[in-house]
């Protein structure tokens, strides 16, 4: 009669490292139980590649039963991999004793499936190969789910892009933007509206954080911009109105474990008759007014990021500009942040790059500046969205 497993473990110090105390019978029993009950499929071949053993999970996954014993695993081949693939797999097994990877195989009923596979070469005490053991998991559904998520993210990025305003080009006002979303979904956007015959409202937002939630917050605010800007026009009123909206978002939904969201933004009303700008920022990196003579003014009047405080005081800056010789530049922190945390140095670098490329058309100017700036930031990965708007006034 087989002993109870618990008894064996207790009586014989089953897991002892002491050779003398090893209990072969117990170990074999555990190995067999594990083999029979594990969720991963296992098949084991001899050194000639002939299948010797399979476990129940293997049959569950592939539909194959005992009839595969005595056959070669090539019967599972899906035809999706070429000879080079199998050759390099075997080279790895011979060299490293192991191969891990994903393989498309064929089930008993002909259906193809993607399996996560680990093949291990099992050797005896004299280093001679005895068996090859393959442990497999069906990851077809997981891969499909991952792909669906990727497709959704791509679609969401496209939706975000489609919400961006299109360039305007008149004699007195020429504006364009550039938006490079990071790998993850981000929360940057920009928009501009013609308020009346000679005034334009220009805004850029950056919802702090990344991912689906930030992107949705961004789109939720985005949907309000036209109405708020056309109704309130003045920077102080526009930012207060946006703050009310962001502050109340999710505020009473603590049970959903929602975090609070904040966004930074810059907003300007450009008057092309008076050649004047009303400006306010909400915790956003400074905007620039660049003159043809190389002078750069930093615009930083404003308030704290939106959504942080229930009530905000907004300081508005009033500027005038030299007609036909001024560029107004908005950007998000993806262009000035890197691991060195030297924001001031990076802001100065960005100003220099803008000055360097200001003689190009504004769309070329943005492409060159962004390329050059990202090069100088020397970030290993594209962590954040990169967004820039340039208006030639």
């Amino acid at each position, binding site marked *: 009669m087989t002993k109870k497993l618990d008894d064996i473990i207790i009586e014989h110090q089953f897991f002892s490292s002491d050779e003398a105390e090893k209990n072969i019978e117990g170990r074999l029993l555990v190995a067999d139980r594990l083999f029979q009950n594990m969720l991963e499929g296992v098949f084991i071949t001899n050194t000639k590649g002939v299948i010797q053993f399979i476990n129940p999970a293997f049959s569950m996954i592939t539909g194959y039963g005992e009839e595969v014993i005595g056959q070669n695993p090539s019967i599972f081949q899906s035809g999706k991999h070429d000879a080079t693939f199998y050759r390099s797999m075997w080279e790895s097994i011979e060299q490293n004793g192991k191969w891990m990877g994903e393989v498309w195989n064929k089930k008993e009923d002909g259906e193809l499936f993607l399996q996560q596979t680990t093949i291990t070469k099992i050797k005896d005490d004299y280093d001679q190969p005895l068996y090859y053991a393959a442990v497999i998991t069906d990851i077809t559904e997981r891969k499909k789910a991952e792909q669906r998520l990727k497709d959704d993210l791509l679609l969401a990025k496209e939706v975000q892009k489609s919400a961006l305003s299109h360039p305007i080009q008149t004699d007195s006002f020429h504006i364009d933007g550039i938006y490079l979303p990071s790998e993850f979904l981000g929360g940057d956007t920009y928009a501009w509206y013609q308020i009346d015959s000679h005034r334009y409202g220009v805004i850029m937002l950056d919802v*702090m*954080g990344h991912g689906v939630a930030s992107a949705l917050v961004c789109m939720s605010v985005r949907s309000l911009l036209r109405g708020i800007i056309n109704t309130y026009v003045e920077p102080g009123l526009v930012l207060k109105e946006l703050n009310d909206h962001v502050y109340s978002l999710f505020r009473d939904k603590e049970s959903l474990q929602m*975090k*609070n969201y*904040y966004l*930074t933004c810059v907003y300007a009303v450009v008057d092309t008759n008076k050649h004047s700008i009303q400006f306010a920022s909400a*915790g*956003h*990196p*400074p905007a620039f007014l660049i003159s043809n003579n190389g002078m750069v003014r930093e615009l*930083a009047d*404003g*308030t*704290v*990021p939106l959504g*942080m*405080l*229930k009530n905000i*005081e907004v300081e508005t800056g009033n500027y005038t500009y030299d007609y036909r010789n001024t560029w107004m530049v908005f950007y998000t922190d993806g262009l000035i942040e890197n691991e060195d*945390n*030297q*924001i*001031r140095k990076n802001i100065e670098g960005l100003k220099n790059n803008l000055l360097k490329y200001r003689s190009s058309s504004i769309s070329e100017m943005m492409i060159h500046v962004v390329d050059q700036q990202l090069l100088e930031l020397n970030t290993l990965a594209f962590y954040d969205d990169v967004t820039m708007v340039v208006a030639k006034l």
Partner: protein
Amino acid sequence: MLKTVNGSIQVLEWKENITLKNIELFRQEMNNILTQDSQHLILNLAETSYINSAGLGIIAESVVQAKRNKKELVLSNIEESINEIFSIVKFSSFMKLFDLEAEAIEYFKASQHD
């Protein structure tokens, strides 16, 4: 680490950057200092050179929460890189920032005499 100075002022000495990795711990520590009996609270950021956006949010909310409870939370030992961020987000418009912890303590001492 929380310490008491001058009998009644509570100081939280936060000694690393505030990132995704430790943001929950930072939130807990801030909640902890806010629940202390003391009215006078200092967040000392001497060894912090980066704060992520969630961290900025926690600081802002803590300052507001303290005010709501008739307390005051001030910040001290702000490094240059943090100072640049604080200046962009205009934190000085609604919280007191001190170069040194001693100055923050002096500020509270003076207010006690009022």
